[in-house]
């Protein structure tokens, strides 16, 4: 038998296992490695701090989500040796592979920023990318009625790069509903030079911060958290009463130990085929890969469709026919029951216009609508029932220009 080993049973790993299991030749088997017992629906974490999502409802047991034919080793990975095609598992066992897929994601590492996890951690200093963090923040927000809330990004890349903006929009809405907005100052602090990366979306989202009277502090590279303040490398200080930070995100430590990673332990891959540099039997998919596009579930989904077609040809000794275009799309919750949608790839920045979805109708791009918000909420069911099982979704895999409009410079301040 030939063996495909998939490291990680998160979004990307689960989709790959479910898509490949029925299609692999009969002499192939799949073995997966993951230490967790549960699968977490990460997009739901954003709503937990505002008391709008029961954290317990975001997790399901892992095993029923995987094909029955897959063997699951419940452990972490110590190291991969690409030369001998071996995976050293931290329960002491060793797996050999014919092909390896690394899908171990990226994780917030608050300890990378000096002072972040000191006394104030989970009291006045919070994150919302874990169940424990989002739940602790819910309790903190309950008690927070006046003072300065600082929403902060430590360093890029982060997974779900729009989430901190969404958090700021939802916080403004939340305080308004509670009647405390006038006694709370909100500051959004980012290492970028604007609210977002690409000009048209940065312009739109920056305008939305302004409308909500959220102050924007740009080009802020945090050096430490010290005595209730963020301190930057160029010695700016931003005091806070409540800090919601998105810590430095890093890939799994074994990636670095195995010599496969960049300086943040994300796997260096070909951005069109996901094949690791200098190897023809190691792939990385999803957040684990160092790709110049968003780390997001949508990217993982579009990547997996390309990867599966390519992989079946690759193991048959034929050239890989498809090239991933960097396609990602993200709903951006903006408060008041509305959301925006952005859709983009390696070459095309998020543009306004419409995004056609059969059966639902066109969704508005870069514009706040109720339908976008409902589509975001409905996505949870789509995720569990269609996306993870590898069923096709009725949206095109490659990004399409259909419906998109490139605004002239004068129109850019909408």
């Amino acid at each position, binding site marked *: 038998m030939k063996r495909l080993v998939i490291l990680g049973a998160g979004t990307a790993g689960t989709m790959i296992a479910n898509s490949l299991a029925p299609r692999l030749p009969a002499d192939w088997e799949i073995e997966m490695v993951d230490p967790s017992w549960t699968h977490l629906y990460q997009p739901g974490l954003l709503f937990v701090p505002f008391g709008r999502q029961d954290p317990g409802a975001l997790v399901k047991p892992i095993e029923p989500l995987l094909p029955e034919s897959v063997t699951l080793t419940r452990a972490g990975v110590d190291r991969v040796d690409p030369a001998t095609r071996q995976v050293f598992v931290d329960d002491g066992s060793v797996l050999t592979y014919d092909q390896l897929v690394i899908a171990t994601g990226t994780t917030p590492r608050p300890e990378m920023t000096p002072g972040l996890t000191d006394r104030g951690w989970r009291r006045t200093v919070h994150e919302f990318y874990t169940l424990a963090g989002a739940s602790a923040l819910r309790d903190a927000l309950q008690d927070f009625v006046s003072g300065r809330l600082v929403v902060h990004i430590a360093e*890029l890349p982060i997974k779900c790069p729009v989430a901190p903006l969404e958090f700021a929009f939802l916080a403004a809405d939340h305080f308004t509903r509670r009647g405390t907005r006038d006694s709370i100052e909100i500051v959004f602090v980012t290492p*970028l*030079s604007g609210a977002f990366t690409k000009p048209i979306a940065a312009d739109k989202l920056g305008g939305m911060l302004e409308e909500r009277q959220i102050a924007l502090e740009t*080009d802020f*590279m945090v050096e430490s958290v010290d005595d209730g303040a963020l301190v930057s490398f160029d010695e700016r200080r931003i005091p806070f009463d409540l800090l919601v930070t998105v810590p430095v995100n890093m890939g799994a430590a074994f990636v670095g130990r195995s010599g496969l990673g960049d*300086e943040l332990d994300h796997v260096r891959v070909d951005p069109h085929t996901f094949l690791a540099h200098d190897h023809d039997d190691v792939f990385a998919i999803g957040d684990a890969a160092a790709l110049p596009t968003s780390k997001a579930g949508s990217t993982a989904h579009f990547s997996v469709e390309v990867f599966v077609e390519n992989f079946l040809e690759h193991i048959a000794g034929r050239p890989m026919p498809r090239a991933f275009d960097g396609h990602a799309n993200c709903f951006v919750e903006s408060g008041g029951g509305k959301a925006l949608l952005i859709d983009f790839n390696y070459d095309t920045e998020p543009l306004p216009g419409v995004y056609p979805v059969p059966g639902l109708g066109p969704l508005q791009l870069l514009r706040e609508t109720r339908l976008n918000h409902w589509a975001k909420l409905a996505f949870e069911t789509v995720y569990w029932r269609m996306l993870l099982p590898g069923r096709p979704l009725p949206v095109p895999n490659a990004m399409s220009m259909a419906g998109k409009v490139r605004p002239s410079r004068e129109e850019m301040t909408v």
Partner: protein
Amino acid sequence: MTIAAIGGREVHVDAEGFLTEPAEWDEGLAQVLAGNVGIELTDAHLGAIRFARADHAANGETPTLRRMATVGGVSTKEMFALFPKKPAKKMAYVAGLPKPVGCV
């Protein structure tokens, strides 16, 4: 993409003035580019720039501040001292490299 006259010669630049052909750069041009962003080049600047250019030539990407620190040995604190306020961008500009990819 346009052609601009910088320091008495013609070079290819993007809409924001970043050189698009790393081969059109030399350290003489760096002096002029540095002046454009209010920086007087020292050996420390040139050390950082030489690493960034070699790294770009090897990997095809302008190094991030983290990479400058962990691989290039120039700490982020130092980068802010050398290229104030926007070190990654200013260094790329002076080094004749593409603007660092904004992580989307």
